[in-house]
């Protein structure tokens, strides 16, 4: 339907992974290419290693490169507070003490004066420099010069927050907060390098972007902050409340984020980004007076504790329309610049906002859902409020392409070779957009007479499938019918994987597949998974009742001897490894390469040796009503949630397959309006973010 984001890294398409029966490249070969052979590995140097970015990336890369024997050299000025040691507790939490000690033991710390490199550095044979020093161009350039003089073959990347590669004279790998865990890197380089591919092979998410001022994330996040500060200046609504509305309608809370990161530094970076953008794109990006004041004063955006807010603010419909103009107007205009400049693959541009700036839906998805005419109207309304922004850098024509596959398939792609189709999903949680795009992908494959299909993650942006996007449930919390309709609609889509193809294969390539996504995948005729992938249905812990037929569909495909396994699985909410769920959830679980090969065999009608588990379309009456060995029996909430899920299991299994979809949807939709759900995770999030 469109190109795969994987192709932007020079790694081929998702289809080719299955066709070739293996991943396009391995970390081992790339490590050797960049850092040398195992008996003579060079080092990764991170300069500014005690800063927020430097320390975070020292952890993220250090933990991934340690198994390959690559030393991490952490370089910083003498006297700079140790930012690396602070990371240790997080490292222990993620990897355990033993592994954390190994990672820390592989870090070599050097101080230097900014001019002369430490003598001992050469002994580590530096091969790659990741520069994370302050945003002062001359200092950065001098830094590169020093390294190149000492190590002529060294590769250099900057994590700069704004300078283009053409100004810096080095490649750019712009990371996202929080740096120790966020996997996204915006990469600027003439063509995909081995280093970018290595990031991918290490499980990170490099995204190629063009060489312009600031990055996609920064344009979106700094732009949103700017828009919100303009709204504040126009209406006086305090930052905390503006944040609440932005969070409700769009997802992020930009001011809180600045305070959480550290207002003084974060506001400076935001100002710096906007300042440079305004020099290129004009008034649209000019920092507001309050932004300058906060930057110069270094004060938090939220009030001090003793001035916790006292007067609440609300908006009527007219004011909400104005709010949308102030916030969405500039965002759409800024996005038009990035589209005009072809900054990135549209899916990436869209998902950077979601994965790095907490947008509940990417700006492109929001744009697409509104339609070009409405988008232009909102920008025009914004220009009435802020006429200076209309003078330049507005490209409305980019929105005329909204009907193209690149726009319509932001989250779901489909490819085929005339016989086998591959549907790849790049969003980690299932929402209405994914549902709509998945239907379009199925329609497209059907229209091309494709009978066999593999449904998979995209091997790039989506490193796991965490289930339904629970923010989509919020409207259902006050109206059961909305929940029932949502459940039915998503289930109807899932059933198409069973009914619309001769053979469908669900392929779990990521770390985990949970909740709604697992429900979707089990609708495929076969479920193939990387053996260590975690599978789970954590709904009971939220609590919600699975809405995509998780309470009966898997049971209809398994032997009755496995009922208890499944009931324990769904009622405990505990995950199982794919290899431990063979026969009742998965049909095959092996290492990555073998699993890829098996999926292809199944989809291409090759000899695969697996027996298809048939779907029982009749009423099932022998489902056990009780299950032993469950934890937390004294916890009333979880016990009540288990009862509700068990009731759904019993009733939907007692129904025929044809009727079960409505039975399950009713249980799921009705439950969302109960006190039990409202006081749970979803209900609490709803109250916190929607009851503004």
């Amino acid at each position, binding site marked *: 339907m469109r190109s795969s984001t994987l192709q932007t890294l020079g790694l081929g398409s998702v289809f080719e992974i299955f066709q070739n029966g293996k991943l396009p490249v391995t970390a081992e070969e790339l490590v050797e290419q960049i850092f040398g052979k195992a008996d003579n590995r060079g080092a990764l140097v991170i300069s500014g290693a005690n800063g927020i970015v430097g320390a975070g990336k020292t952890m993220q890369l250090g933990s991934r490169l340690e198994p390959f024997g690559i030393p991490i050299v952490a370089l910083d000025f003498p006297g700079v507070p140790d930012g690396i040691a602070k990371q240790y507790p997080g490292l222990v939490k993620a990897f355990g003490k033993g592994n954390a000690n190994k990672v820390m033991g592989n870090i070599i710390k050097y101080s230097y004066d900014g001019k002369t490199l430490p003598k001992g550095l050469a002994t580590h044979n530096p091969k790659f420099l990741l520069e994370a020093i302050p945003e002062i161009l001359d200092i950065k350039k001098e830094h590169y010069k020093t390294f190149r003089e000492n190590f002529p073959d060294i590769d250099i990347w900057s994590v700069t927050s704004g300078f283009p590669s053409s100004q810096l004279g080095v490649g750019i790998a712009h990371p996202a907060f929080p740096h120790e865990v966020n996997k996204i890197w915006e990469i600027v380089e003439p063509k995909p390098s081995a280093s970018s591919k290595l990031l991918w092979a290490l499980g990170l998410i490099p995204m190629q972007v063009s060489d312009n001022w600031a990055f996609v994330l920064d344009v979106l996040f700094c732009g949103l902050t700017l828009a919100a500060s303009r709204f504040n200046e*126009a209406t*006086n609504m305090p930052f905390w409340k503006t944040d609440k509305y932005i969070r409700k309608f769009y997802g992020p809370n930009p001011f809180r984020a600045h305070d959480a990161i550290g207002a003084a530094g974060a506001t400076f970076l935001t100002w710096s980004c906007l300042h440079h953008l305004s020099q290129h794109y004009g008034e649209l990006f000019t920092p507001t*007076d309050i932004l300058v004041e906060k930057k110069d004063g270094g004060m938090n955006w939220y009030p001090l504790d003793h001035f916790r807010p*006292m*007067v*609440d*603010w609300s908006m009527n419909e007219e004011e909400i329309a104005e709010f949308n103009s102030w916030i969405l107007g500039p965002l759409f205009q800024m996005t038009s610049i990035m589209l005009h400049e072809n900054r990135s693959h549209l899916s990436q541009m869209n998902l950077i906002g979601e994965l790095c700036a907490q947008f509940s839906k990417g700006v492109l998805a929001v744009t697409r859902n509104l339609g070009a005419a409405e988008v232009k109207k909102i920008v025009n309304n914004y220009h009435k409020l802020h006429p200076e922004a209309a003078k330049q850098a507005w490209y409305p024509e980019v929105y005329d392409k909204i009907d193209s596959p690149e726009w319509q398939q932001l989250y779901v792609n489909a490819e085929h070779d005339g016989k086998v189709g591959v549907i790849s999903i790049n969003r980690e949680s299932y929402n209405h957009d994914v549902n709509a795009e998945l239907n379009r992908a199925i329609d497209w494959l059907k229209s091309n007479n494709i009978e066999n299909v593999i449904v998979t993650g995209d091997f790039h942006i989506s490193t796991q499938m965490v289930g339904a996007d629970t923010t989509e449930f919020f409207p259902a919390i006050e109206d059961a019918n909305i929940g029932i309709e949502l459940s039915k609609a998503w289930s109807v889509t899932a059933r198409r994987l069973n009914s619309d193809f001769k053979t469908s294969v669900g392929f779990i390539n990521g770390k985990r597949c949970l909740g709604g996504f697992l429900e979707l995948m089990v609708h495929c005729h076969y479920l193939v998974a990387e053996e260590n992938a975690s599978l789970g249905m954590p709904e009971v812990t939220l609590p919600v009742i699975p809405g995509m037929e998780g309470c009966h569909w898997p049971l209809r495909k398994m032997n009755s001897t496995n009922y208890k396994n499944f009931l324990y699985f769904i009622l405990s909410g505990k995950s199982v490894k794919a290899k431990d769920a063979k026969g009742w959830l998965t049909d095959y679980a092996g290492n990555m390469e073998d699993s890829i090969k098996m999926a292809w065999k199944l989809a291409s009608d090759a000899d695969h040796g697996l027996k298809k588990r048939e779907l029982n379309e009749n009423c099932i009456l022998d489902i056990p009503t009780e299950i032993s060995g469950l934890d937390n029996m004294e916890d009333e909430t979880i016990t009540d949630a288990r009862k509700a899920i068990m009731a759904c299991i019993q009733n939907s299994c007692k129904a025929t397959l044809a009727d079960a979809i409505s039975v399950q949807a009713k249980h799921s939709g009705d439950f969302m309006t109960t006190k039990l759900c409202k006081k749970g995770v979803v209900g609490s999030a709803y109250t916190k973010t929607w009851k503004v």
Partner: protein
Amino acid sequence: MKVVESMFPNARIPYGTWGSSYFPAWQTSPLAEVNIGQFAGEAMANILGKRKVSRKELEYLVIGSTIPWHWKFWNGPAVASCMGQRIPGFQMEQACATGLSSVIIAGSEVNSKSYDVAGVLTFDRTSDSPVGVFPERRSYRRTEVIADVWDNFNFDPSTGGTMMATAGLAARKYKIDKKEVDELTYLRYKQYFNAKNSGFLDRVLFSFDVLNVQGKLLGTINEDIGVREISLQTLTDQRELDTCITSGTQTHAADGMATLLVASPEKSKELSSRPEINIEFIAKVDVRTLPGLMPEAPGMAVQKLLQRTGLTMNDMKVVKNHNPFAVNDAIFAKTMNYDWAKMNNTGCSLVWGHPQAPTLTRIIIEALEEAVDLGGGYVLVFGCAAGDVGTAGIFRVS
């Protein structure tokens, strides 16, 4: 309309940029539980937002407050920060004269071209007023402890008398009849409820949701809590606490805030929702009468004001006063030969309460709004204040 010279030709009050909270009676609302300075700052930002005025327009803030509040030392700048605007400011204070004088000071600052826009923000919380501990060598205890509101009401250090005693003394001096005072009070309640029912108050008063420390709703301030319709018979039946003074014919302590802007003529047009309306400062005086006769002071202030401007009561389109005691109005009417039924058409502080600093500010706001409804003219606002003081000011709406 007779034309007289403005005291501040370079200053205006932009129509429609003002607003006040409701004034809940003391101890009846969430306002009894807040730092009133913070509340006032946040509430002013909210009012200006609803009035489509950016806080950025403000260059200076005159705050008026008479009861100490936490962090009062920081005064204007602290309150301005709560509004979200880092501007300098200054505090004004003289009991219930504070509101009018705060507006005048802001007018003076703008008139002298120090600023194009100055805010006036007056507020007080009488509930749970702070207690001060003062070394006092002339007292037998050497250290005196006073509750700021009630102990001051009950002791004027200049005369040794109470606030209420001034009303009784003045009523006796002017031979005021209780029947007249009861009838006057009854009319004042009718005027208030007529204004309320007509929607007039909705144009000047703003509702506020007050949050507790957890950010949850503590309560909503959406009416002058404590004000109930009252019958003439009820007033008649009430026991006299002093001459002509009953619980019904005097005001009650309250909490609240009120704000307006003062701006240069050009900026005023820019900020106002109706730029064609011109509101000018004409004159203002304060007088001090003999000991213990506070209720006669406002009339004396008005007399002086009229003498100095050459205007008469017949020139006044709107007459409105701060009348903590109903006898104030009876004495004013008697000394000025003016019909008390013609004044306070939209309510007055006798009815809606007495939060001190913002009292006269709300009176000014209501009076200006009423004058606009009536097509313009001179607006006389006046009132009494602790220390046997009378204050009066005239504005012109055209």
